[in-house]
């Protein structure tokens, strides 16, 4: 059998797993994707010819009726906090998988299922906030077609939301595997790459929250 084994896959040149290199390359690529989206939002900021506007009221004659600034900072601050907490849950899920069965990881801290569910639920909460935000904007007269702000805002945050959605589906898949056969230290990489993706999406939101919501 040794003869056979000698032909088997050699270890990788770096000692790292292929998938982890690929996910980091992917995240690098995503940087450019979101940079393009954020640039567009910032370029078009203040260039809309009709309201509603993000931070300013819109009055006649520019708008038919008085329109309040549309961004809802309290709700978004809450959803930002939720997403940050989901990142915490995610690292704890990874730690639980990596250290399954080790001392100090008994109980809740070692329950990868709990932390995966928490992450997913927090992610879904974030998406719920976004859905609430979008519908209330539409009620206030801002759709993706209304003006440059609407187009670039919905596209940017929508792209981010789509990434969160994909992340939630990924987490649910991991959860299904965990329920089916249990995730252990051997599967740490599976969780790790999902976690990297998840944190990256969080990090993008940190930038969006400041650049879109807080800065006038």
């Amino acid at each position: 059998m040794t003869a056979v084994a000698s032909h088997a896959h050699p270890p990788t040149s770096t000692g790292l797993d292929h998938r982890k290199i690929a996910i980091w390359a992917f995240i690098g690529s995503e940087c450019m994707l979101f940079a393009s989206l954020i640039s567009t939002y910032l370029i078009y900021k203040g260039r809309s010819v009709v309201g509603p506007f993000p931070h300013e009221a819109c009055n006649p004659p520019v708008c038919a009726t008085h329109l309040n600034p549309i961004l809802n900072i309290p709700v978004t601050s809450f959803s930002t906090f939720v997403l940050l907490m989901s990142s915490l849950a995610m690292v704890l899920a990874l730690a639980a998988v990596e250290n399954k069965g080790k001392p100090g990881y008994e109980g809740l801290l070692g329950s990868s299922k709990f932390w995966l569910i928490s992450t997913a639920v927090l992610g879904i909460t974030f998406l719920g906030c976004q859905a609430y935000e979008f519908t209330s904007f539409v009620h206030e007269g801002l759709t993706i077609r209304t003006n440059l702000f609407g187009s670039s805002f919905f596209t940017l945050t929508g792209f981010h939301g789509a990434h969160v959605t994909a992340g939630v589906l990924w987490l649910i898949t991991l959860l299904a595997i965990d329920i089916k056969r249990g995730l252990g230290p051997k599967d740490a990489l599976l969780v790790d790459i999902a976690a990297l993706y998840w944190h990256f999406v969080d990090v993008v939101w940190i930038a969006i929250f400041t650049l879109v919501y807080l800065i006038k």
Partner: protein
Amino acid sequence: MATAAVSPSYARTSSGSPSGIWSWLTTVDHKRIGTLYLYTALAWFAVGGTEAVIMRMQLQGPNGRVVSAEVFNQLFTMHGTTMIFLVVMPLSAAFFNFLIPLQIGARDVAFPRLNAFSYWVYLFGSLFMNASWLVGMAPNGGWFGYAPLTTLPYSPGLNIDFWMLGLQILGVSSLAAAFNFITTIINMRAPGMNLMRMPMFTWMAFVVQFLLVLAFPVITIALVFLQFDRFFGTNFYTITQGADPLLWQHLFWIFGHPEVYILILPAFGLVSEILPTFSRKPIFGYPVMVYSGILIAFLGFGVWAHHMFAVGMGPIADSVFSMTTMLIAIPTGVKIFNWIFTMWGGNLRFTVAMKFAISLVALFTIGGISGVMHASPPADLQQTDTYFIVAHFHYVLVAGSLMGLWGGIYYYFPKITGRLLSEKIGNWHFWLTFIGVNLTFMPMHWSGLYGMPRRVYTYDAGQGWEIFNLMSSTGAYLQALAGIIFAYNIFRSRTHGEIAGNDPWEAPSLEWSIPSPPPDYNFETIPTVTSRYPLWDIKHPELTASVPHSRHGDERNDVSLGGKHVGAFHDHMAAGTPEGGLNPNATQASSKVSLKTAEELGIPMPYPTIKPLWVALFMTLMFASLLLIHKDKLPLAMAGVVTFATLMTGFLYAWLTAPLEPHHH
């Protein structure tokens, strides 16, 4: 496990390897995928070339009547799009696929099924985009697709829809392949193959993958905006809503300029393989060649606006982008000189591959010099959007990229098929190409400076442009003839070419140490690499004693010729003598050489699978469903998207959960 005589010995010409349509549809072998890329890209080259010839027929004389304005606009749009996305990039991908694992001493790429997926996406995407011809609505907005011309009010037909959806599909292919190759090159190098020992082609390929990964997201977003504008009524490019048409231009060229290097660097890499081999000298200044490639790529992200000097960005931006653009000339110039000095002092053998490589060096220089002329905005304002710039970028992309790629095909065809391309026919191909290219594109410098705008389907008589256009058209016909000869050469040599043997050119790198065509597992034993020129080390250890970057403690010090230890590398050169290529038996028939199968050797090979093809197909159909929106069938379009997305996800899930290869032990 390794029981003998389970299957016949490996030989491509006999029944050893699986054959038949199904084996190609399900293949995950990087070499077969590379071959698929190669022939598909060559087929599209025929299409793109035909488009060019029709255009040159139209422009042969003033007031031409061969095609209408509308058809001409579709032709130049599709000619550009085809040549860039369906020919040069996939031809490069063919070499990436075929060569990267062989050059770094790997058995396959990091994600073999993803690799198959990339190819199928490319195939379906290219078919989708060209299907527009069948409905008479080929894209007509130029390959650059400037908004607002491409927005709904100015382009209400399906033409632009085909284009933007097609590019999105092709982008998926390029991105997937890029992640794959990045991982492969970082992670699958054979022992001893450190970064500064990688062959130049692999280096340039490595750089190109990063360009792809960073450039394609930007065009993706620009196209998403266009899609949203056209399908959902957003305002990214809507003039009446205050949109800025320059947004598209900036996003497009942030992608578009790195794209130029995506097109040229693989050819540079191939030339850096060919020149040393046929000079019998190592590449001059290897580290500088590597760094200049990286520098070109890096600077390539800081020059995009030189495509936009005419839009009025203001003197500061013009000056900055002018300077960064001029800077790029330096690493490019370094490459040219290093190539020349690679040949200097060598024993030059003028094979067809070598001739193509040399003509890249000679002619790319012209494109480089006219490039610097364009880098000066005041001069550029007279030159841009005339035939002068058409001349410039065809010297870069035809006399540069394509010459390099043709050279690469002559050089690597024996490795791919086991047979040499005919040098006799190849000489006709080369000289007709060389004359044709120069006759086509050199006069365009003059027609441009004498005031002829580009992208015109007709021009007036008496402007002094007639003779130049006639020459350009004649040159184009010569190039077409050259293309036909090339096709014949490939067709004939595949079955009647000389048997190549492992190493017909006495080349230095790993891919030449294994049989031609290589067995599915590539290397019986993963080689241990001890220098940049492993095969030359074995053949001429006395000459390579001073190779830099062969660090202390390297096994290369143990390498010696004739019977003694020459490294793990030497042991497995199954079909050859220790020297690799000069095997007298090999020139007779490689098919007689008995190679062990992967199974016999106990090498786990990935299972063939059809799933990537299905995922690619359903993804393409998902995008294609969006076309129905403009037929006022939104519900049907959405139904199509949902159906195909579901199918795609289902097959993707099946793919991801199926094991890649047998679990041995």
